[in-house]
């Protein structure tokens, strides 16, 4: 502790005072050791040193960082004095640059996090996920899921595969530990190889033994803490998972958020029964031996398919596999890979970061050149004394580098402080490691780049001044006025593009959320069932409550994905097709309660036993061109060959509705009456009275728990659920909003600086005009007109760009708004209004000034 104190003191104390104060400190210290303890003395020493850090005692702050080129110290001194002299100007530059740097750092953190997905494995280049392809007739299926037998087969058949592991989704089991019950999401069956391939770190247990025996479970640290309470005692505990007793055989460290696969618990694959080539749903990962190419493996997998006769080519059924590198999954554009990232979004955000920085650099450039006359005398004198042009331009580069470094430091601190807010905004745990070497290099590079970009042009202009002219008093060349205008136009073009984009993103989300889905989602409460309630016991209970106006059931939760099957369908001309039809099994009152409109035929009858009757949507009818859809049928293949086809006769047609996702257009859809295709009722839908909602929901929960003790109650309102589906878009919109706001703010800051300067120069002109009778309006008009024209031109350039870009983005939605001229114009107007307000505030103040005070020296 004393050492630290000595070090601080020697570093900061004024050299003139150092020696004797040090002596005093030593004397006190020795005395304190005698009187009290050493620790106490040391501590007091440190305190005394800290109390010594006063302005009058510390080293004077000097610019003597560069001993090799002492002129740099001189330049820095000049910069600091100049900054202090023109405070508004400096504030605009430093504040604008700092904010831009903050934004850039935060965006960098976001982009870097997105790029870091699945990059952390030691064997990154050798890990692949297997894609399963099959073709039957014209129908091609491609997916990451396949048979659970694939992994062990790959290991035995292909020696170049070092390890093959697999996982299989376990749908939200109910986990019970002692008295506590949880509905656990992200549970998977997995085998030991999976944890080896994905390099999971075991805190308890090990990868050799943990997932071997049936009914064994591995928890992540977080899950163990949630369920058992702590990691230490987790090992060996018995958990009841969906009423089956399982033992915890291992605890793994939490899986980093930047992994494409983030399970919360793993259950041994050996627990899963009936693994076969027919049963799909298992995802296979392989670790290849070193120096093995994936194309070699793909060839060998092809040979393996032939050898084991996995396909049936004579009947037109073919199977093949290929490998997809694990590191590419997250940002893959291939929809079948389920990558959650969006590379285009990353490009867009990187571009935004660069543009924000550019806008701030332009501010510096414009202000530095516009205000160059203020530095003219200094430059003149320097030149007369003997400075070369090279030295002058170097001086101004040093100055801009100084300002950019200062801004990067401030910006980094702000980014550090705002980090958490940004993480909340993006919903991504993208914390930036500020002490990382790479980040540090980037920040240094950023400071250099910003300094050079913003400083090169001013230094060129300023160094070109002719000393004779300056010292005689003529105005020097201040850089081209038109270049400055072009740069301002550029700033506002970018700002307007971002503003309009933001407006369009918000309009689109609003549209999605308020679009008529073809069913009524209001006041519908959904309850997930653990026990299928086949006899409608729970339904009857619910119907007795006055706050519940209707109860129905279905296996389909809107907007959670698609369940469908392949049917054989004949069109109006009698040609036969095979087609995928999305489907749901519902109660007879479902269509009524969800207010899906019937166009022809009739709804399901409560008492009908016509189990082969279905109700389809208009899309299906139109697709096959049926003129008289009622009585037409679709059919399935029988399970066995030669089995008769099962026919489903259409008894009704409903208007199109959208239950899947608004990214897709409406698909052919068929409703089956329960209990046909009874995959168990998975959800009850309750129409609630809006009064006493809380009481009703409590009732629903209590009855549910009385009915099904084993399951955990999970209920949501349908509209809230649907809103959550578009959370990603909302996030995008918020990010755009923030950064569009920032760009326009920074651009306006520069505008403010320019306006201030031009007003200062014209103050005498304005005063004379005022004396001669000009009113406020005409004066404001006088100074605003230039900027008005510039920004209007920006608007003209920006609108086609934004139109083109946003049309492309909107095309990714099946249902989207169109970009209207009104949107474009309102965006431009918004920018205009903000900019004009900025200029007018300054103009108004100047115009109000008393002409006598500005003209008194003439």
């Amino acid at each position, binding site marked *: 502790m004393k050492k630290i104190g000595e070090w601080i003191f020697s570093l900061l104390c004024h050299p003139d005072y150092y*020696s004797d104060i040090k002596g*005093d400190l030593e004397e006190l210290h020795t005395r304190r050791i005698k009187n009290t303890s050493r620790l106490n003395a040391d501590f007091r020493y440190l305190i005394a040193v800290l109390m*010594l850090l006063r302005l009058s005692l510390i080293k004077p702050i000097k610019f003597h960082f560069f001993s090799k080129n002492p002129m740099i110290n001189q330049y820095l001194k000049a910069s600091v004095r100049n900054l202090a002299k023109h405070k508004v100007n400096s504030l605009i530059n430093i504040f604008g640059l700092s904010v831009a740097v903050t934004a850039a750092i935060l965006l960098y953190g976001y982009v870097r996090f997105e790029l870091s997905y699945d990059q952390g494995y030691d064997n990154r280049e050798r890990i692949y996920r297997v894609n399963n392809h099959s073709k039957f007739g014209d129908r091609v299926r491609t997916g990451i899921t396949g048979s659970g037998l694939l992994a062990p087969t790959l290991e035995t058949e292909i020696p170049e595969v070092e390890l093959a592991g697999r996982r299989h989704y376990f749908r939200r089991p109910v986990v019970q530990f002692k008295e506590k019950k949880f509905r656990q999401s992200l549970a998977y069956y997995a085998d030991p190889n999976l944890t080896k391939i994905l390099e999971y770190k075991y805190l308890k247990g090990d990868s050799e033994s943990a997932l071997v025996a049936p009914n064994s479970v591995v928890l992540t640290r977080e899950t163990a803490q949630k369920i058992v309470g702590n990691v230490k005692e987790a090992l060996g505990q018995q958990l009841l998972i969906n009423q089956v007793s399982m033992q915890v055989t291992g605890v793994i460290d939490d899986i980093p958020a930047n992994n494409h696969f983030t399970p919360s618990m793993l259950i041994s694959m050996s627990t899963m029964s009936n693994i076969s080539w027919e049963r799909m749903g298992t995802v296979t990962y392989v670790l290849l031996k070193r120096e093995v190419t994936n194309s070699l493996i793909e060839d060998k997998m092809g040979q393996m398919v032939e050898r084991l006769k996995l396909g049936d080519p004579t009947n037109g059924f073919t199977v093949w596999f290929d490998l997809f590198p694990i590191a590419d999954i997250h940002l893959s554009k291939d929809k079948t890979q389920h990558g959650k990232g969006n590379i285009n979004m990353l490009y867009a955000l990187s571009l935004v970061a660069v543009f924000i920085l550019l806008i701030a650099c332009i501010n510096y450039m414009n202000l530095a050149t516009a205000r160059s006359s203020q530095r003219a005398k200094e430059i003149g004198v320097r030149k007369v004394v003997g400075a070369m042009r090279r030295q002058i331009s170097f001086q101004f580069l040093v100055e801009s580098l100084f300002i950019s470094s200062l801004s990067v430091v401030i910006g980094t601190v702000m980014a550090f402080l705002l980090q958490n807010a940004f993480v909340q905004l993006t919903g991504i745990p993208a914390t930036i490691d500020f002490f990382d070497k790479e980040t540090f290099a980037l920040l240094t590079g950023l400071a250099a780049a910003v300094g050079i970009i913003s400083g090169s042009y001013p230094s060129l202009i300023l160094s070109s001044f002719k000393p004779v002219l300056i010292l005689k008093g003529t105005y020097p060349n201040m850089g081209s006025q038109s270049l400055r205008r072009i740069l301002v136009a550029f700033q506002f073009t970018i700002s307007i593009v971002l503003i309009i984009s933001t407006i369009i993103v918000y309009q689109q989300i609003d549209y999605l959320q308020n679009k008529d889905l073809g069913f009524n989602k209001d006041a519908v409460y959904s309850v997930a069932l653990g026990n299928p309630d086949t006899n409608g016991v729970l339904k009857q209970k619910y119907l007795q409550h006055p706050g519940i106006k209707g109860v129905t059931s279905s296996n389909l939760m809107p907007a959670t994905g698609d369940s469908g099957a392949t049917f054989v369908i004949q069109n109006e001309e009698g040609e036969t097709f095979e087609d995928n039809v999305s489907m749901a099994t519902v109660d007879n009152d479902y269509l009524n309660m969800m207010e899906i409109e019937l166009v022809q035929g009739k709804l399901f009858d409560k008492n009908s036993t016509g189990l082969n009757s279905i109700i389809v949507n208009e899309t299906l009818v139109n697709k096959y061109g049926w003129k008289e859809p009622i009585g037409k049928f679709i059919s399935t293949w029988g399970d066995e060959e030669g089995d008769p086809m099962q026919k489903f006769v259409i008894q009704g047609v409903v208007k199109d509705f959208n239950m899947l996702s608004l990214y897709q257009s409406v698909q052919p859809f068929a409703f089956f009456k329960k209990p046909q295709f009874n995959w168990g009722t998975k959800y009850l839908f309750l129409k609630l009275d809006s009064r006493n909602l809380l009481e009703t929901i409590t009732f629903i929960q209590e009855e549910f728990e009385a009915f099904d003790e084993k399951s955990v109650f999970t209920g949501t309102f349908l509209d809230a659920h649907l809103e959550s589906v578009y959370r990603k878009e909302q996030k995008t919109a918020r990010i755009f909003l923030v950064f569009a706001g920032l760009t326009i703010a920074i651009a306006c800051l520069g505008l403010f600086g320019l306006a201030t300067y031009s007003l200062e120069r014209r103050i005498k002109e304005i005063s004379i005009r005022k004396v001669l009778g000009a009113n406020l309006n005409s004066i404001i008009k006088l100074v605003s007109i230039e900027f008005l024209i510039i920004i209007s031109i920006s608007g003209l350039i920006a609108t086609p760009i934004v139109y083109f870009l946003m049309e492309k983005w909107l095309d990714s939605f099946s249902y989207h708004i169109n970009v209207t001229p009104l949107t474009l114009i309102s965006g431009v107007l918004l920018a205009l209004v903000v900019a004009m307000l900025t200029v007018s505030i300054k103009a108004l103040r100047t115009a109000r000034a008393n002409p006598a005070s500005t003209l008194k020296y003439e």
Partner: protein
Amino acid sequence: MIEYKLGHFEEVVLLTVCVLHENAYGVSIKDEIESRIGKGVSVGALQSALRRMEKKGFLESKEGEETNARGGRRKRYFTITNHGKKALEEAKDLRMELWESIPNVVFNQVP
């Protein structure tokens, strides 16, 4: 023109330097003040006051003899200058003047 204004703490330090006469250096001043006020004084506060007054010209200082104690550092002895004396006197005069201008009743009044 030299300013004679003294802060309260400065005045105390200056007076203590006079009290210690010839033997006034950092630690001894600190001890003296602490024993009289009965309150701790940080080295920082004291030193900054000393240097400030040295700059103002109230104090002057010289290095003491070589020593092996104190980590081999010499002591710096402070002595008051004429300006310092003047400043003290002025401060004292001001106070006396104020004391004398207090109406008798203020202190003799029975509350």
